[in-house]
């Protein structure tokens, strides 16, 4: 058969039409585009067995409950743990990206001495030498942990000082120490039973205390209601998130919180809005009005509004004694919906000794990077991440979130006593040591963190009080051994103590406290870690939701 030119053209046209009408080109196009989207340098999600574990967040002292999704042994997602009695399933925005911090480029992986490479042996030798030459100060950001006991006992043995640095939530409770003789760490705010909350600059909806606690209360009892069950009155100097969402917003001159508190207290006493419970403020109403920048009538109206829906509590953002005294006048100290004693005071050697007198200062990784000790001593700073320029002589790498065994005592502002354990879910990088492990190596007689945690579980069991909240609630009396209690807590359970007895707190305020400048906390209520998870750029840079935070990730 002779193949003609016409046959070639017919076959060619037929083949072309056939290919076009078949799925082949579309399949090739699809495969090509899939292929081009799977270049070897495009990261692939983790593979491996999936599991969900419960733990506690250790980035700040609030210790929110964590639900950790793991794939192939690595954490791939964090969410709040609904069974946690205080955080109630909420996390701060940065907590949702915190599992990435393990891999943060600023992760400290080796010992550094004044900017150069060094080793643990050299750091240990330098610290031992310093201990032999003079007293040692140890600074702790999350007091009350098992590691804190290690620090405290080490400092005591070496004639040193153990200093706990409190956040603004705890600092706001410090003025009551002198009037109630109860340490601030045993006091809490009973927000759940308050009907009116007057916040003097405390960012209640923006990073104050445990994120889920007040958010839940506000959402259920106040949000969008013209006459809410929970009245939030926010006093501030410039518009904040809390102010924009508050039931009422009061704008005052910067630094005049004490004057306004004095003015309100004077109206409360003069107008007999409260039974006489304390001394008359030194400022007159007109002086308070002049200093705060709002009229005397407005202060009077505010005082009447405050007591219209009781219990009422005032919350400061620092250790302002005038605001604490206002709570005394309001009868909020030792009463339901006010300042309550959540736990019994325990012996402690927390000191206010001057760090300038120390030969060496050890700063635990729980302290925010911004903290700079006022001292010329040799500074040994433990940290999981390098937060930028630092005054420390030694930078010592520690395990990060989810890598270390630590216990989490009661959150700073909580009204109920809690105890949780964050068990390590992934192995820390080689060459990292926590400050407690470092001290235990130097003083082999010191009890390790594991042993202290076991002893605390044993103590809780012997106390026969409280309940362990996990997927189900179990009274401590139904738990047979300390080992079982510890196991439950290591698996994400939270021990919750008995509700506070408000009447057990007695307050004795003889004179209205002298006005003095407020002392801001060394720990802000904003996120305190030295670096942010990369996903934080969604908040700070890829949107205009929050203002960039200077001095972080620099």
């Amino acid at each position, binding site marked *: 058969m002779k193949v003609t030119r016409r046959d070639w053209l017919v076959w060619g046209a037929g083949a072309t039409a056939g290919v076009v009408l078949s799925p082949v080109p579309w399949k090739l196009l699809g495969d090509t585009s899939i292929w081009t989207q799977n270049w070897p340098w495009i990261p692939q*999600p983790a593979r491996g067995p999936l599991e969900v574990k419960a733990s506690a967040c250790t980035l700040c002292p609030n210790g929110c409950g964590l639900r950790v999704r793991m794939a192939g042994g690595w954490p791939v997602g964090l969410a709040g743990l609904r069974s946690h009695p205080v955080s109630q399933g909420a996390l701060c925005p940065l907590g949702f990206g915190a599992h990435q911090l393990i891999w943060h480029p600023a992760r400290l992986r080796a010992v550094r001495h004044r900017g150069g490479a060094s080793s643990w042996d050299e750091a240990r030798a330098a610290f031992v030498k310093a201990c032999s030459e003079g007293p040692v100060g140890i600074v702790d950001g999350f007091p009350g942990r098992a590691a804190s006991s290690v620090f405290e006992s080490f400092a005591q043995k070496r004639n040193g000082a153990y200093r706990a640095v409190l956040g603004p939530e705890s600092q706001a409770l410090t003025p009551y120490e002198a009037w109630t003789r109860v340490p601030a760490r045993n006091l809490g705010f009973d927000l759940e039973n308050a009907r009116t909350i007057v916040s003097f600059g405390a960012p209640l909806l923006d990073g104050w205390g445990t994120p889920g606690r007040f958010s839940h209360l506000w*959402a259920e009892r106040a*949000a969008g209601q013209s006459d809410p069950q929970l009245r939030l009155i926010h006093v501030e100097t410039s518009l904040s998130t809390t102010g924009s969402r508050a039931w009422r917003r009061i704008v005052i001159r910067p630094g005049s919180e004490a004057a306004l508190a004095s003015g309100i207290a004077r109206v409360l006493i003069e107008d007999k809005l409260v039974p006489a419970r304390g001394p008359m403020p030194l400022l007159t109403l007109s002086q308070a009005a002049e200093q705060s920048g709002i009229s005397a009538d407005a202060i009077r109206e505010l005082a009447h509004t405050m007591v219209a829906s009781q219990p009422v509590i005032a919350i400061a953002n620092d250790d302002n004694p005038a605001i604490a005294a206002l709570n005394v006048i309001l009868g909020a100290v030792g009463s339901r919906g006010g300042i309550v004693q959540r736990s019994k005071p325990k012996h402690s050697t927390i000191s206010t000794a001057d760090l300038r007198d120390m030969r060496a200062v050890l700063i635990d990784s729980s302290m925010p990077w911004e903290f700079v000790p006022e001292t010329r001593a040799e500074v040994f700073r433990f940290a999981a991440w390098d937060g930028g320029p630092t005054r420390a002589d030694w930078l010592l790498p520690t395990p990060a979130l989810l890598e270390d065994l630590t216990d989490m005592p009661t959150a700073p502002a909580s009204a109920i006593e809690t105890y949780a354990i964050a068990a390590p879910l992934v192995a820390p990088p080689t060459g990292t040591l926590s400050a407690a492990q470092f001290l235990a190596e130097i003083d082999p007689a010191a009890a390790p963190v594991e042993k202290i945690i076991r002893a605390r579980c044993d103590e809780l069991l012997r106390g026969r009080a409280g309940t362990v909240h996990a997927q189900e609630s179990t009274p401590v009396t139904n738990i047979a051994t300390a080992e079982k209690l510890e196991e439950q807590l290591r698996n994400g359970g939270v021990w919750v103590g008995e509700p506070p007895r408000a009447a057990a707190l007695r307050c004795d305020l003889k004179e209205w406290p002298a006005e003095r400048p407020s002392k801001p906390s060394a720990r802000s209520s904003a996120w305190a870690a030295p670096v942010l998870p990369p996903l*934080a750029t969604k908040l700070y840079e890829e949107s205009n939701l929050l203002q960039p935070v200077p001095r972080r990730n620099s």
Partner: protein
Amino acid sequence: MSARYGMVIDLDRCTGCGSCMVACASENNVPSLPQASDRTGLTPMLVRRISNGKQDESRREAFVPILCMQCEHETPCVSVCPQQAVEVDKATGIVMQMPQRCLGCRYCMTACPYHARYFNWWDPAWPAGMEKSLSPGVAVRMRGVVEKCNLCHGRLHSAQEKAAGAGKREIDPADYVPACVEACPTGAIRFGNLADDNDPVSQETHSPEAFRLLARIGTEPKVFYKSKEPWVRALADGSGAEVKRG
């Protein structure tokens, strides 16, 4: 039975904390690149701050989480896509974006009245080792394609797999909750099946306080908002002559 998944976002409850934004990015393996800005970043869930325009004590602010509105009627992105890379899933009502088909023309971004679509300007990248923290079940999208919220479709797949494993055709609603809904500390974002009249979220869409963004253009979004504040509702409708963006 086909579902119509949607949301009701109570703006009176939103505190603008941003948890939904970070949880969304974490769940969906959205990269966080140092060169990204508020114009070039990927924020499938974006919380915007709005105000009533006053500058004195009467100034009020609110926060509006913006995500794909899952338009039901004449979905603008579907009609303009030359690649059929966008379609409304008949079974769920979710507006699906298929990055494998997308050629990056960005017509859909122009067409979207809600600015809820984002372009991948760069290859996705994470610091060394951090790829181990990526969420399994969600493929990483590459440079040159458009992406948006798909109501955490990976979670829907997981719920469907779980239901299939148990021999059921319908998923348990508790198994399918998008990351932003799970993360919201005030319960402002609620998720449900709008086709089910018994679903509380579906019932909430009939509340007199419920509204949809730019309702007048008739795209019938399946994301509803709620607020008692008249100035918020006026701004949402695009008729807020007396209010300004904060």
